[in-house]
């Protein structure tokens, strides 16, 4: 199935990706942001916070945003 993914850690592009039926938000996070801790990110599905066991549905919108984003001068 296809979902809409926005990874704001880095390029911040929005794109559609293909995921297997029954994929959870945690499984998607581990695939897209390998080696990082989920608690260091704001993870939203359709702009709402969800449980780590949330199962993705076709066409849903997932955004991943770091909780710490360094500003500059």
């Amino acid at each position, binding site marked *: 199935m296809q979902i809409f993914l926005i990874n704001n850690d880095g390029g911040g592009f929005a794109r559609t990706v293909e995921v297997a039926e029954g994929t959870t938000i945690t499984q998607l996070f581990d695939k897209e942001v390998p080696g990082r801790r989920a608690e260091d990110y704001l993870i939203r599905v359709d*702009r709402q916070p969800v449980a780590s066991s949330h199962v993705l549905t076709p066409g849903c919108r997932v955004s991943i945003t770091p909780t710490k984003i360094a500003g500059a001068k």
Partner: protein
Amino acid sequence: MKSHPHSRWRDDPKLRMAVHLTAQLERYPGLSTLEQAMDRVVSRISALQSTWRQLQLAASRQWTLSARILQQRLSDQLVDLRNYCNHPQAGLQESQHRVSVKTRTIHEELVACQEQFNQFSIEKAIVSVVTDPIELEGNNLGRFRIEIDTSRCSNHQPLHGIQTIALDPNPAANDESITHPHVRDDLLCLGEASVPLFHALEDGRLFDAFQLIDRMLHTYNEGSAYLTLEDWNGRTCEECGRSSSEEDMSYCERCGNGLCSRCQVVCDHCGNPYCFSHTDELGDERLCSRCYDQAIEAQAEEQEEEQGQEQQQEIIDDPQEQAA
């Protein structure tokens, strides 16, 4: 009686904004994000080259303090360039997947902003929300209103439409224009968020944009702040502990400690500032270690020369020598 769809449109500012923003963003379907990204990379390389030239000059003239500051600046600029360099590569991979803008999606974005942020408002082209009070390392900086001018989203500079206005200002003691370590004159220096924020605004993803800016305001990057939180309430003299403005501070050339105008000791020979403990007295002068050593050496040479001359004179004056 069922309301006419047109009256619903008039009554809902979010819907009006969504329609307006869709029209704006669709007007420029062919934005060359890669071209813009490369412009940013090139401008940052120019800045790096300039800093490198300045550092080389400072090092050649032994301006130790300036060289130290420039080296830090060079390091910050390299990190900044690395962030920008990620963008063109992602652009090559991602541009074909770019999703078209839809009114309904933008409306959903605005609804989410209203639900999840404080004091959401739309005033003409400006959408704004208010953050929670921000506290960084014990410093209470108050709430900030984040304003996004959506009329800028459709041109090549959407980031220029962002303002972060302190509502309960607790600015830096010596510079009222700095209300947050990364905010000066209501402008947030976007750092790591520049690239994802650019794309969010280009796509009309206002919820993501507000979320990114909110997270930045809650993050302290000590290495790249307009003013560090340590100095937020004024610079501290390392000798007497009093707080002074930046203009009144100098830095020991030997150890780098900050010194107020009353505590600094200026070497009578080289004119550089030092801590008192890094200077020595020589006659009625106060000298840094290097100038002190040089002065002692010069004195010793002078004495040797005088002794040599005296000995020669003695030989000249000696009657036996004269006879010989």
